[in-house]
């Protein structure tokens, strides 16, 4: 218990010194010195000849679009791609401090599966494997009149 108190005190003092540092700026924004460093080293300017990176915003295809998407000038920005390097993504990439989440592992497994299916033509091994396990009572789609055999023959 003593140890615990000690560590929590340490934690507090670290927080305190951090706050003290923050206070020296006296605001959330950059100090003039920091601004100078940012402007010189990191800020993207026209003379750099590179485009400003922006994240893609993909609206839902099947829903009314509510998201505000302020479109930058055509060609002025470089939209970062999440699919350009898809063939690299069927294996876990290295991590630093944060491990891969379940959701990330799901993505990797799906990419791996798609890599395996990519070379198949016509019949699909996944479908053939599952077909014998289908129980008709498990599936119920209102308005679906076509039986499985018809759907499959297309």
């Amino acid at each position, binding site marked *: 218990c003593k140890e615990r108190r000690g560590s929590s005190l340490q934690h507090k003092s670290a927080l305190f010194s951090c706050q003290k540092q923050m206070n020296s700026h006296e605001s959330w924004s950059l100090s003039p010195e920091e601004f100078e460093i940012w402007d010189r080293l990191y800020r993207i300017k026209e003379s750099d000849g590179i485009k400003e990176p922006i994240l893609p915003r993909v609206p839902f295809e099947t829903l009314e679009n509510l998201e505000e998407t302020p479109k930058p000038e055509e060609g002025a920005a470089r939209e970062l791609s999440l699919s350009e390097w898809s063939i690299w993504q069927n294996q876990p990439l290295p991590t630093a401090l944060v491990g891969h989440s379940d959701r990330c592992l799901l993505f990797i497994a799906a990419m791996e599966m798609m890599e395996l299916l990519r070379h198949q033509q016509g019949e699909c091994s996944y479908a053939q494997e599952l*077909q014998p396990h*289908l129980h008709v009572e498990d599936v119920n789609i209102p308005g679906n009149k076509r039986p499985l055999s018809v759907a499959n023959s297309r």
Partner: protein
Amino acid sequence: ALVPAQRLKAAVHYTVGCLCREVEEDKEVQFSKQSIAAISEITFRQCGTADLPGLAGHAKRTTVNTEDVKLLARRSNSLLKYITQKSEELASSNMEQKEKK
């Protein structure tokens, strides 16, 4: 009794296939069997990553309710609006059914 994963996957695959055929007719595109398989597998696994019991537990509940479901849709305003509308429709139709009884 625990339902074998293969049986669950088969049901998901069948349903995904039907939904894809609807999209095919609607948009006049074709899905390969392999892409339907990929969507099925992703749907099946996606069900395992949605932490609904975790969200309910966070609110000190043991029963998952519609608020937990809405939280899953929080990243997109369009999706959240859609889910909220559906949730309200469901709630009002449930009320009607109760009144009938």
